C-alpha cells in the first residue's frame, strides 16, 4: 500500500522530516505518536502534497506509483485522504456543492461519469445520518460556523463519500469532547476493512482507546525512533515521551 523510505523534508528552510521509514500494508492501522514539533503533522502534509513542504530526499511508493511525483489532487484521486486537524472554512460554497465537486473529480479520475444530482443527494443524506449530522448541514457553507465536533464529523463524512484506500487522520481528537470523539471513532471503525489502511497521527493515547491500532510508532526529531504494538502507546502514556528519548539514547 504505502512504503516510505528515508523521507526527508523541509518547511521554510527548516528540516522537519529526517530519514523517516514506514511501511503500511492493506487493512493495517498505524498510529504515529510523538511530542509537539516531532514532525507528525508535517508527515501528513508531505504525503498529501501540500505546497511549501519541500521534499529533499527519500522515496514514497503508493500502490506501485511514485507518490512524490504526483500533484496534490492526483494523490487524492488515487485514494489518499487526509483528515485535517483544523478544517478550513469556504464561505458561500455549500457543503453539498463541495462534496459533489469532490466526488465527481475522484470519479472522473477513475473514468466514471459524474453522479446525477438526485443520486448524489440521496447518498449524501444517507451518509449524513451515519455520522449523526442533520440534513440541513449539506446546505450550509463548507465548515462555515461549524463547531469543532461538526468540522471533524464533516471530515468523516467526506471520507465516507470518497472511499479512500489510505486515510491519514491528523490529530483528529484535538478539540473534541468524549461524545464527539466516540462518534468520529465509530465512523472510522466502520470504515475499517481488509483493503483500507489508516495512519492515525495523535499526541495522546486517548484516541487509541477508540481506534485501536495494529502498530504504534514514536516520531521524534523527524524520524521514527521506536515501533511496537498497541502496548507501546500505553507505555508512553505512563512514562511520557522523555522515556523514549532516554531509552533510545
Amino acid at each position: 500500500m504505502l512504503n516510505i523510505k528515508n523521507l526527508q523534508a523541509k518547511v521554510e528552510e527548516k528540516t522537519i522530516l529526517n530519514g523517516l521509514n514506514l511501511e503500511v500494508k492493506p487493512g493495517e492501522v498505524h498510529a504515529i505518536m510523538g511530542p509537539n514539533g516531532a514532525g507528525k503533522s508535517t508527515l501528513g502534509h508531505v504525503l498529501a502534497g501540500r505546497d511549501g513542504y519541500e521534499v529533499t530526499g527519500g522515496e514514497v511508493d503508493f500502490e506501485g506509483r511514485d507518490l512524490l511525483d504526483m500533484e496534490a489532487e492526483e494523490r487524492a484521486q488515487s485514494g489518499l485522504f487526509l483528515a485535517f486537524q483544523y478544517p478550513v472554512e469556504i464561505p458561500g460554497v455549500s457543503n453539498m456543492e463541495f462534496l459533489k465537486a469532490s466526488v465527481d473529480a475522484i470519479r472522473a479520475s477513475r473514468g466514471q461519469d459524474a453522479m446525477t444530482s438526485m443520486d448524489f443527494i440521496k447518498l449524501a443524506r444517507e451518509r449524513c445520518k451515519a455520522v449523526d449530522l442533520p440534513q440541513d448541514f449539506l446546505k450550509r457553507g463548507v465548515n462555515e460556523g461549524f463547531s469543532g465536533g461538526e468540522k471533524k464529523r464533516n471530515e468523516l463524512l467526506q471520507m465516507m463519500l470518497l472511499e479512500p484506500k489510505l486515510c491519514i487522520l491528523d490529530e483528529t481528537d484535538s478539540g473534541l469532547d468524549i461524545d464527539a470523539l466516540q462518534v468520529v471513532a465509530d465512523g472510522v471503525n466502520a470504515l475499517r476493512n481488509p483493503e483500507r489502511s489508516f495512519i492515525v497521527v495523535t499526541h495522546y493515547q486517548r484516541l487509541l482507546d477508540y481506534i485501536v491500532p495494529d502498530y504504534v510508532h514514536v516520531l521524534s526529531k523527524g524520524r521514527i525512533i521506536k515501533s511496537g504494538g498497541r502496548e507501546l502507546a500505553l507505555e508512553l502514556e505512563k512514562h511520557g515521551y522523555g522515556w523514549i528519548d532516554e531509552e533510545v539514547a
Partner: protein
Amino acid sequence: MSEQFDQYLKSEYAAGWVTDVESLTIPPGLNEDVIRLISAKKHEPEWMLEWRLKAYRGWLEMQEPKWAHVKYPKPDFQALSYYSSPKSMEDRPQSLDEVDPELLRTYEKLGIPVHEQEVLAGVAVDMVFDSVSVGTTFRQKLKDAGVIFCSISEAVHEYPELVKKYLGSVVPQKDNFYAALNSAVFSDGSFVYIPKGVRCPMELSTYFRINEAKTGQFERTLIIADEGSQVSYLEGCTAPMRDENQLHAAVVELVALDDADIKYSTVQNWYPGDENGKGGIYNFVTKRGLAMNRSKISWTQVETGSAVTWKYPSCILKGDDSIGEFYSVALTSNYQQADTGTKMIHLGKNTRSTIIAKGISAKNSENSYRGLVKMNPGAEGARNYTQCDSLLIGDQCGAHTFPYIESKNPTAVVEHEATTSKVSDDQMFLCQQRGIDPEKAVSMIVNGFCKDVFKELPMEFAVEAGKLLEVSLEGAVG
C-alpha cells in the same frame, strides 16, 4: 502563492474576434460639424440636434474627473471616430430578415438568441453593433402587450414625446464630463416603455458589441416604467482584442413611476486588455434611476471586463417608500482597474436601500468600491444597509473601499459592513486534497464569495456569470 495562482489565471478572452464587415466610419475628430453629421446620419429632428449641441458646448467647458482610483493616459478625443456603422445598415433594413447575415452571426457566435423561434426565446434582444442597432427581436409580441422596445434612434422618430420628456431627466446633459460627451455624440442603445399596470411578458435585453477599431461607442439607454408596471432588463457587452484602448462612454437612465418595478442586470465583459495591460476598453459609464412613490429600482452588475471601469449605478429615491438596490460583483485581473460602486440618494420618507458589493482582485489589478449613501432632510425613517466585501487572490493586487455617508435626517439609519479576505493556501489545499484541481477550486471559492449577488441575477444570466468568472480567473490562482 502568487506564482502558483498566476499559473492558473492565464485568461483567454473568448469574445476577442473581429467580424469582417464593411463599415462606414466617419473620420476621427470631434467638433460641431461631427455632431451635425451624426445627427444627420440618424435623420434626427432639429430638437434632437439642438439637445446634442447644447451638451457639446457644456462638455467643452468641463474637466475630466480625477478623483477615481484609476490611472490611465488622458484619451485624445480628437483621435477617436464617433460614428461607425456596417455599410449594410445604411439602407435601414426593415426587419431582421433583411439584416446582413454576417452581423446576425456575430451575435449567434456570442451565444445571443437572434431568432425568435429559438428555445431560449424568453428573452427579447436589441443588438447594437458599433454605433447602430442592427435589430430587435419580439417587437410585435411586445407591442401586443403595449410594451415599446426599440433602439433609441427609432424612438426619437416614433415616440418623440416620450423621449423629449424623459431623455436627460435623470442624468442631465451636463451631469458630468462623460455624460456630457455621451449626450453630444450618443449613437445607439435601447428604449423601453412599459405602460401603466403592465408586467412586461418577457425579459428584455440589449447586447452591445464594439467591432471597428479606433472608434468609441456611446450607448444611450432610456427605460420608463409607468405606474404599477414591471420590467426586467439585461445588458451584455463584448469587444475584439485590440492593442489600442477604446472608449465606451454610456448613459443609462431609468424612470420608475409610482408603484413600478425595474430590475436592471448587466454582465460587462468588454475586452480587458492583455496580460501586460496593453489594450482594452475604457468604460466610463453613468447609470442612474429615479424612483417615485413605492417604486423599486434594482441594479445588479457583474463586471469582469474593461481595462478601466468607472461606473456607479445609482438610485434617486425621490418617492416615499421607494426602494433602491445595488448588487455588484467586480472582478479585476492582470492590469485591470475598476472604480465602481453606487449612490443611494434618499429624498423621500421611509425610503430603503441595500448595497451588496463584492470585489475580487487578482494579479496586478486594482479594485475599488466607491459608494455614497445620502440621507436628505426629508428622508424621515429612511434606512440603508451596505455590505462591501473584498477578496484578494495573490499578493500583487489591491482592494480599496471608499464609503461616503451623509446623513441630514436624525431618524435615518445607515449601516455599513466591510470585510477583506484572501483565497488562502488552506482553502486551496483542502480542495486539492479532496481531488479538486486548483482552477476549479479557485472558481468555486470565488463563486461562493459572489453567491449573494448571483442569486439576484435572472437564471440564465447567473449561469453565464459564473462561467464568465471562471474564464476570467483562468490562470489567476496564487
